[in-house]
């Protein structure tokens, strides 16, 4: 009789599965053109990025990393080491897969920044808008990504495009947050000084707030890149090609070597991109 004390009462049940299914079905049936449009648009960007990346010969890429790392770290030994690590990816036979993965990451990060940066600025200007957006960002970041892989596939099909969308959803929040944080923590007197000299809102933003917030914003860019790299394997489950799918194949066929090789290549990419982008923004700070 008093079962409900120890166990959750069976009699009450709210079905939210069906409405969600129905909503997605509705979107599939009625917003098809919209999703096709997005899909086309993303495929176009991705194609363009891929073409550019693939046109870079392997030796030029290694040379670029060598020079970039040398300028970022001012340490020739470290630079040589980074170049050697990149060479190693080619050596273990994963160069072209690495290029595919790089293209997906660059496309995702580009879209995350293009959306996240203005969004962060808007939030920094309006508390009310911020209160509205923040829970959405939290959800985007904490919702297990597998959950939105399914509808992404249903709406956009398998392949690199839904992978980009899933990656954007996962990697955009830090950009929004850090932009917002950077702008909000600009010294109060700097803001006042700008206004006191008769700056318009636009001048205040462009000449004072954004440059002052730049170090924090760049930390956001860096985080976004790292999160995008973290999605490489997950997004291969919905058909993204590249190093991630290599790991997946390794798992499916119980080929440890194959999985590890691709895993190592991903780690090397992450390390190189991290060091190079960090170097770029530390220089700006000086």
């Amino acid at each position, binding site marked *: 009789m008093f079962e409900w004390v120890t166990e959750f009462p069976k009699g009450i049940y709210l079905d939210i599965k069906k409405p969600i299914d129905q909503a997605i079905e509705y979107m599939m049936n009625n917003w098809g053109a919209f999703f096709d449009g997005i899909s086309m648009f993303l495929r176009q960007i991705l194609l363009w990025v891929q073409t550019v990346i693939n046109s870079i010969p392997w030796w030029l890429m290694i040379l670029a990393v060598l020079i970039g790392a040398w300028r970022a770290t001012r340490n020739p030994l470290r630079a040589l080491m980074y170049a050697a690590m990149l060479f190693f990816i080619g050596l273990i036979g994963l160069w072209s897969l690495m290029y595919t993965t790089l293209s997906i990451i660059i496309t995702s990060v580009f879209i995350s920044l293009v959306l996240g940066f203005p969004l962060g600025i808007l939030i920094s200007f309006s508390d009310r808008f911020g209160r509205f957006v923040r829970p959405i960002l939290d959800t985007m970041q904490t919702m297990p990504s597998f959950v939105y892989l399914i509808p992404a596939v249903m709406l956009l099909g398998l392949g690199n495009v839904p992978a980009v969308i899933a990656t954007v959803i996962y990697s955009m929040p830090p950009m929004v947050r850090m932009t917002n944080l950077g702008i909000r923590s600009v*010294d109060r*007197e700097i803001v006042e*000084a700008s206004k*006191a*000299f*008769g700056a318009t809102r636009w001048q205040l933003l462009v*000449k004072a707030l954004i*440059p*002052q917030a730049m170090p924090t914003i760049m930390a956001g860019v860096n985080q976004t890149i790292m999160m995008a790299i973290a999605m490489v394997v997950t997004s291969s489950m919905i058909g993204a090609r590249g190093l991630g799918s290599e790991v997946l194949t390794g798992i499916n066929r119980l080929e440890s070597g194959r999985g590890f090789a691709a895993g190592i290549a991903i780690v090397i990419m992450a390390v190189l991109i991290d060091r190079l982008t960090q170097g770029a923004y530390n220089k700006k700070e000086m």
Partner: protein
Amino acid sequence: MTPDTIQAMVETKDIILSVRNLTMMFGRKKQQAAQLRAEQKSKEEILKETGVTLAVDNISFDVERGKIHTLIGLSGSGKSTVVRCLNLLLTPTKGKILFEGKDIQTFNAQQLLNYRRKNVSMVFQSFGLLTHRNVLDNVAYGLEIRGVKKKDRIDRAMEMIEMVNLKGWENKSIDSLSGGMRQRVGIARALANNPDILLMDEPFSALDPLVRQDMQFELLSIQEKLNKTVVFITHDINEAFKLGNTISIMRDGRIVQTDVPEEMTSNPADEYVSDFINSADKAQVYQVKSFMQTPSCLVSLQDGANTALALMRIHNVSSAYVVDNKMNFVGVLPLDAAFQVREGKLSFKEALVNDTPTAKQDMQISDLIPIASQSRFPIAVLNDDGKFVGIISKAAILTSLK
């Protein structure tokens, strides 16, 4: 002062800025707070009952063109709030601010921008400089906002940098400057717009005492040159008396007295004012050491005439101060004599002028007037042990006697 005397002042003096019944409340329940204020409740009671901070409470004062008006009061007395109302960084809850007779709260958006771009500039306590720009681009900032052409604003900014003695630093980053130099940048930036009024919110409070004195002197000499109107906020009574042509003392958001310094000393409005004034060491305010500067050209006997010549050329001055290795003052080396030393016509010691008058650092500055008129050079200032500590120029002596 009574409203009548203020009225009398308006009629006879050139008032550039007047503040009338300015009230500023922070918080939501302003109406309720106003009600309590009408019932003569105190600032604390109002805060406790309504959560409203009565930061500025019905104050009025006038600022005369070309004069320095200082606002002084303890921390939290509402000084910063007042000065931020003067360029509408804060919107007053009640009251009027008249610039050349025009109510600035009736300005539309463009008029307000123009007012801020052309009529008032502000200098901040922690400088408010853009750390991502170098000195030159900071000074040119206001001009850039106004849309002045690049070449013109650089010329103008360089002129200002020279005026605040920062020549040669224009390409340095803000981080590489000392506090005093940063505030020079802040002042140059404010002056670059050629505003009618400078608003200065505790501009020297973050600086070391000696640097502070240099800056106070510099402000006085700039003001002498450019004849700007200055609203100067400070919590240091010595500074207020030294700089202010008129002084308003604030307490809990109210102005207790506005007057010229002499009048305030002889006729304090109440005990609070007289206590405040007594806390100032009046003798000290007018001591020589409050007005002295570090000489740009100080050489020791060992350095010789060539070093002295080089320094004089760099700093564009016509005399060098010479000390021995224990900082005892030896004499002044005039430019022409230094040339003669270089040509071998005189020895270094012979070239020194050692009969120029000197001053002790704790002398009253008024005692220097007879000496100053006889001396060819700025007067060397010595401490009690006879060591050289600085110089005091005739200009400094005269500005101190405003």
